[in-house]
């Protein structure tokens, strides 16, 4: 959901530092002068990054964000400029070598991050919003509405993600925009499922019923009462999903269904490298990029889940407010 993004930049170098001292003991400490509302959004996310893996993930992601933002300044060469030093191995003038057309691999990698990262985050936000809105409607209203939405979701679930994405992308034609649409169409159902079950539980809880007795309409009930209790798991899911969105996108461009050459893209670079077995670096470094960034998102997502999961919710409830 949209609040996922403002919370994401962990570039804030020491995220948890000022947050932690206020946390322990707060349950029995109602007179705590720190406004709990402010703490809720500024502290919960960094706190969850204080697990070792979460911290590693945050650091990796921070490095990638910096590389992507300052790519034009950092990139030593024009990523599209071809040169005569084809297939130059790493270590020379081109630190990560050059590809078959003599383009600098390092420059292509970091410039590629500029499209891949925002696109992945964008597609995840869109599918999280679409999926959870549909899921919330299904869960709240039930009956026929539920049946229709969830059967469509089941239909999508019935296909392997990458294959369905390929079919859609192939039908729409190659290009970043179509790849995004394809990923969006295949990834919303998981949000719908999660949100649906959460909403179904919440709608029968007494605080929602109390709201209904106060005359809340369905929309108000959903947005005011239920949404705040449903958002965290969806945020966790979305964070974990950024990694798989990047993978799917790379997969599509590997199959020439994503970003159109010559625009640099990790998947396309790997695809090119596969045919150049001797020049291992062409495929290796983009692969490494995908690996690290997917790992980073998974680490962050995992540690987020550990702190926000229903199983540990009690502990979180006590420590975060």
């Amino acid at each position, binding site marked *: 959901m949209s609040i996922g993004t403002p919370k994401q930049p962990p570039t804030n170098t020491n995220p948890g530092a000022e947050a932690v001292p206020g946390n*322990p*003991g707060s349950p*029995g400490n109602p007179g705590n002068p720190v406004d709990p509302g402010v703490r809720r959004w500024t502290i919960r996310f960094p706190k969850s990054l204080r697990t070792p893996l979460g911290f590693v993930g945050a650091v990796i992601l921070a490095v990638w964000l910096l590389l992507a933002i300052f790519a034009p300044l950092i990139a030593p060469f024009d990523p599209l400029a071809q040169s005569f030093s084809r297939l130059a191995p790493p270590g020379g003038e081109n630190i990560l070598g050059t590809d078959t057309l003599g383009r600098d691999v390092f420059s292509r990698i970091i410039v590629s991050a500029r499209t891949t990262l925002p696109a992945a985050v964008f597609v995840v936000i869109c599918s999280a919003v679409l999926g959870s809105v549909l899921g919330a409607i299904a869960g709240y209203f039930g009956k026929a509405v539920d049946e229709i939405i969830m059967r469509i979701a089941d239909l999508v679930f019935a296909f392997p993600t990458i294959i369905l994405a390929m079919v859609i992308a192939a039908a729409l034609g190659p290009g970043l925009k179509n790849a995004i649409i394809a990923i969006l169409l295949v990834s919303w159902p998981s949000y719908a499922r999660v949100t649906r079950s959460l909403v179904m539980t919440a709608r029968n809880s007494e605080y929602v019923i109390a709201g209904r007795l106060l005359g809340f309409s369905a929309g108000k009930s959903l947005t005011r009462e239920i949404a705040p209790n449903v958002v965290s798991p969806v945020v966790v899911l979305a964070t974990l999903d950024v990694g798989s969105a990047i993978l799917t996108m790379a997969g599509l461009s590997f199959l020439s269904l994503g970003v159109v050459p010559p625009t640099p893209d990790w998947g396309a670079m790997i695809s090119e490298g596969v045919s150049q077995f001797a020049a291992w670096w062409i495929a290796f470094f983009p692969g490494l990029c995908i690996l690290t960034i997917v790992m980073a998102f998974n680490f962050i997502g995992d540690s987020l889940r550990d702190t926000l999961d229903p199983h540990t919710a009690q502990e979180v409830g006590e*420590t975060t407010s």
Partner: protein
Amino acid sequence: MSVISIRDLNLSVTTGKTTKHILKDVSFDLEAGRITGVAGASGSGKTQTGLAVMGLSPAGAQLSGSIDFDGVELVNMPAKAHNRLRGVQLSMVFQDPASAFHPMLTVGDQITDHLRHHQKVSKREARERAVHILERTKVPHPTEAVGKYPHQFSGGQLQRIAFASAIICDPKVLIADEPTTALDVTVQAGILRLLRELCDDLELAVLLVTHDFGVLSSVADTIVVMKEGVVVEAGDREAVITAPQHEYTRSLIESLPGAEVSQ
């Protein structure tokens, strides 16, 4: 003579960086054939006192002081040694009978489980003991009851079964933590009567934890009043209820609905 003698019991629980003192210098005795009632509001440490005797203090708990059980020191006793006592010499009944039983096992299996574990009796003999003990706690149709599942019983019957399970190994100490709070008032009287009978007939030393002075007034012999981990008053039932010495006890009794006290 006291079966259990608690002296200067202190309990603190550390979670993260904070340490909470739950019990502060708690001292009282449990005597055979007598019911000692511990009263207090929630958070007063009354349940934790019972759990400390059972060796079931929460993770991160530090105990100090002494709980003397027939010459055996229970404080900081190795877990294995405590396991050998628990269920045999020390037993416990909890507040909610519905969640005290495993839903998928028969009642007979559950009340004889610890008997077979501790005393190595045969399955057949265990069953006979189970029928006998259910009869003892006045569970209707004990022979059929051993083969039934928990959901087939009402709350009051389940609590009787819980008592049966607690006394099947002939314990010396029984800790009853709010045993009637989840029950209807008409059922409560029956359970209290059962508790009184078991205590008298089996010479049990009973620790009855409750927030209900009505219950204490009915069955307790001695009343211990706790507030924030401290024993504020202890004495005979009638003395504590009719002439409370401590202001806190007085305020607790005065806070009860007028009808209960005046009549």
